[in-house]
């Protein structure tokens, strides 16, 4: 038995004249495909459907991609609120560009100093610390690109297109900011011996970070979107152990190169990661509340032991 759903905008205007006819047992995805056929501009990932606000409700319930319409008690004549999420872009595309940029931008300052420091007639040979720094930086972003395509599984397929410009601005800008000062002809280089040790430890952080990403990948089966309690390699003590190693690695980088912009870079990054980590910690604690047979989320650091 087909049912007809009325689709309205938030201001109450009917988006599709006469409503959308769908089979009773249709899924949310079927509805999105049908909507796309009627409104070719709005491909499925650009659409968001939600139930009208009930009395006393502050946040509307959005229809989840994999669910059935009947899960939401939708009947013939039910009203859905449609929101255009704007142009969308795939996660891995955004990730590629935001990591590929720093890889190129950072190296440019190292390899072409005469272009970026034009006022210097005699540019000194590269110091071993600067060479270690460019190697570490390049390794890090190559690893990120590799992880994007071969390790990460994304819980959302797409994000708004504007994020591409925002994220690239952040990563490319900071790469130029850090690289300009680390590779500066007047850079006061710290001890090479100390730098060897610090970069060695930083590389261990990179390997540890990769390990945590592999653990996270295996938490989520292919195509899955659920959540699980992570275990092993730091996760037994820290909710976002992946961020922990990332941050420690960059602190070591900043210490080895003894460059203030690198410290600013990791401070900005850590602040953003702290926000994400706090949200994730809260989400896991909410999902795994120990009631009705659900696991109880264990007591853990959020991101940065012994502080946070």
């Amino acid at each position, binding site marked *: 038995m087909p049912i007809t759903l009325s689709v309205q905008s938030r201001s109450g205007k009917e988006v599709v004249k006469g409503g959308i006819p769908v089979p009773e047992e249709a899924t949310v995805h079927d509805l999105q495909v049908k909507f796309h056929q009627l409104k070719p501009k709005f491909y499925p990932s650009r659409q968001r459907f939600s139930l009208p606000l009930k009395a006393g409700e502050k946040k509307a319930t959005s229809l989840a991609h994999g669910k059935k319409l009947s899960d939401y008690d939708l009947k013939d004549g039910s009203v859905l609120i449609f929101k255009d999420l704007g142009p969308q872009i795939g996660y891995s595309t955004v990730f590629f560009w935001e990591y590929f940029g720093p890889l190129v931008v950072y190296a440019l300052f190292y390899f072409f100093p005469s272009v970026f420091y034009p006022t210097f007639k005699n540019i000194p040979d590269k110091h071993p610390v600067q060479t270690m720094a460019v190697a570490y930086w390049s390794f890090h972003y190559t690893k990120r690109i590799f992880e994007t395509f071969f390790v990460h599984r994304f819980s959302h397929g797409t994000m708004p297109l504007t994020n591409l410009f925002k994220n690239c601005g952040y990563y490319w800008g900071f790469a130029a900011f850090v690289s300009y000062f*680390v590779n500066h002809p007047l850079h*006061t280089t710290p001890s090479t011996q100390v730098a060897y040790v610090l970069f060695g430890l930083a590389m261990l952080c990179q390997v540890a970070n990769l390990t945590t990403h592999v653990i996270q990948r295996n938490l989520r089966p292919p195509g899955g979107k659920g959540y699980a309690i992570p275990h092993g390699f730091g996760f037994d003590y820290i909710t976002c152990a992946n961020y922990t190693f990332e941050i420690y690695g960059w602190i070591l980088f900043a210490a080895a190169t003894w*460059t203030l*912009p690198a410290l600013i870079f990791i401070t900005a990054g850590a602040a953003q990661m702290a926000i994400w980590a706090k949200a994730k910690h809260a989400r896991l604690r909410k999902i795994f509340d120990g009631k009705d047979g659900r696991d109880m989320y264990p007591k853990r650091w959020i991101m940065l032991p012994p502080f946070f």
Partner: protein
Amino acid sequence: MANTYLLVYNASLAAGWAYVAFLVANTVYNGGWTKEVYEAVSVPLKIAQSAAIAEVFHSVLGVVKAPFFTTFIQVLSRYWALWGIVEVAPEATSSGSLTLLKAGPVTLQLNMITLLFCWSVTEVLRYGFYAAKELGVMPYALLWLRYSTFVILYPLGVASEMTMVYLAMPVIRKERPLSFSMPNSFNFAFDYYYFCWIAIACYVPGLPELYFHMLRQRKKILGAPPKAARKIA
């Protein structure tokens, strides 16, 4: 307790800015111009403007409901204009001006006086409004002025601030204050001249955003006027 504190804070600042406004008017009345005006207001102006940092703390501590980021940006932009521009080049900013229009005897120009006029009037109304709120009285005239004068004073004030930047920039370019260059043990350099250009660039998206925000606030608080207002009158 917080109420008493907020009342005292806002009333004092309203009074402080009223004193600044009085000094501006009095100096001009006695034949002074931009240079004399700045000399007269300099000290009370710096005290009143610097005290605004308390608003950032109010927001952080939750003493007032104002959002942190907006408050921070507003106070920061004033601190920059006063301490980072006017005080860095007091001579240039208090003696120069930017002439917009000259038609016969009428000269329209932006200078230190237009800046101080916009700042002091806006602040007297703003702090007066907050103080009245703490007292639990709200004369309609004050409410109306608080949400109406910005329509002219805000763009005029920003234009005056930009005039100060325009007047100070040659000095900053030549003297490079607050700057340091490589090599140093932080491996960092800072050039205040370029920083100023970036700050100016930030005004471009910031200005319309804040202005339209204020216009929406005006509509919300003063209601949908002309038609309704005329009916009552």
